[in-house]
Structure formats: C-alpha cells, structure tokens
C-alpha cells in the first residue's frame, strides 16, 4: 500500500542551525513526491516537488529510491521557517500526505 511516514511530529532547532525533516514512503512504482508547508494562519501551500529538483527558500529535498526517503533539508534555519511541514506522494491523482512535522526555529 502507498504510504508516507513522517517520524517526527515536532522538531525544534536554533536559528542558524541545519534542519532536516524526515519523510519515508512506500510505493511500488516511480513516486512523485512533494513537500507542502503551512505557516501560521495561512493556507497549505506547495514548497517543492522532487521532479523540479529546485531549491525554495533555501530548502532542498533529494529523492533516495534505495532508502525510499525524501528528506527536506536546509543548512541554516531561520525563524520564519517555523511552520507545519507535510510530505506527500501522488498516486494516480490520489495524493497521500504524511501526518506532518511541526518545525520550530528558536532565536
């Protein structure tokens, strides 16, 4: 069954520290993976997708098919990065979301 797992519900780092939000998936085909972010009092929005291989707001995510992971990384966290982050997998128009990780960046 297709599944997305985010093992950390909460993650707290200090400003300027590196941050990594973990995402593991199970999927039998070639996955389409995404990271979504929800800032306080804002809508859920797309942060990045693996197919674009882009860096958004300093965040990157690399698809590791061997480890079935799509971890989100940023070398130097900023306070404005504090938000809820969701990893998602697209399975033929059925988008599966993980439970989310709440990132807090402390000053």
């Amino acid at each position, binding site marked *: 069954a297709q599944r*997305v797992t*985010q093992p950390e519900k909460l993650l707290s780092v200090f400003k300027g520290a590196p941050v990594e939000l973990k995402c593991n998936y199970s999927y039998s085909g070639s996955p*389409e993976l*995404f990271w979504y972010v929800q800032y306080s009092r804002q*809508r*859920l*929005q*797309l942060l990045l*997708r693996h*197919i674009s291989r882009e860096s958004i707001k300093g965040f990157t995510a690399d698809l590791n098919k061997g480890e079935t992971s799509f971890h989100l990384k940023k070398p130097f966290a900023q306070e404005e990065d504090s938000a809820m982050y*969701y990893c*998602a997998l*697209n399975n*033929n*128009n*059925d*988008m*599966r*979301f*993980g*439970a*989310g990780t709440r990132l807090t960046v402390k000053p």
Partner: protein
Amino acid sequence: DAGVTQSPTHLIKTRGQHVTLRCSPISGHKSVSWYQQVLGQGPQFIFQYYEKEERGRGNFPDRFSARQFPNYSSELNVNALLLGDSALYLCASNLGQQQYFGPGTRLTVT
C-alpha cells in the same frame, strides 16, 4: 488574485444530518480535489474531479459524494453525519501536478 474559495468557513451539524460544502477553484483551473483533515493528521484524499468527471476517489464510505459543475466549482456532500466526520475539509484547485489549497471548511458534528 482570486485564490480558491470555500464556503462556509465553519458549520455545526448534528449526527445524522446532511452537509454540503462548496468550492470555487482558481479561474482557468478545471480540476479540484477534496481532502479531509482531522486534527493532528495530514490531509486525507477524498475525491478528485476534472472537467466534471470523477478522476480519483479515496478510501471514504459512500456517504461521501461530490460533483463538479460546468463552471468548475464543486460541492462535497456528506450524508448521515457521524461524530468522526468532524474535521477541516480542504479543497484544492489543480493545474497539472500543482495544487492550490483553499482555507478549508471547519465542520463540527455534535
């Protein structure tokens, strides 16, 4: 820029009642998706519609139904409400693989 709109913002219903939630996608987008988000969990996929046709369905009972109109707006209907249906219902306007989410409708079933 008019983003995705959903109505109502909040509503309270009693067990056994029926509810209709509405969504208007971004102008030019022909596809919408519906999600249920229970507190503490990620969104769970309910339906996707494209050009008025159902393109995907999640693992929800038949009490949940939806439709899309010629203007691409959409309704989500839930019959015989249960306490467990209390959640935030999100609508997304789709363009390719890009999804733009609305603010959601908070449904409370008492």
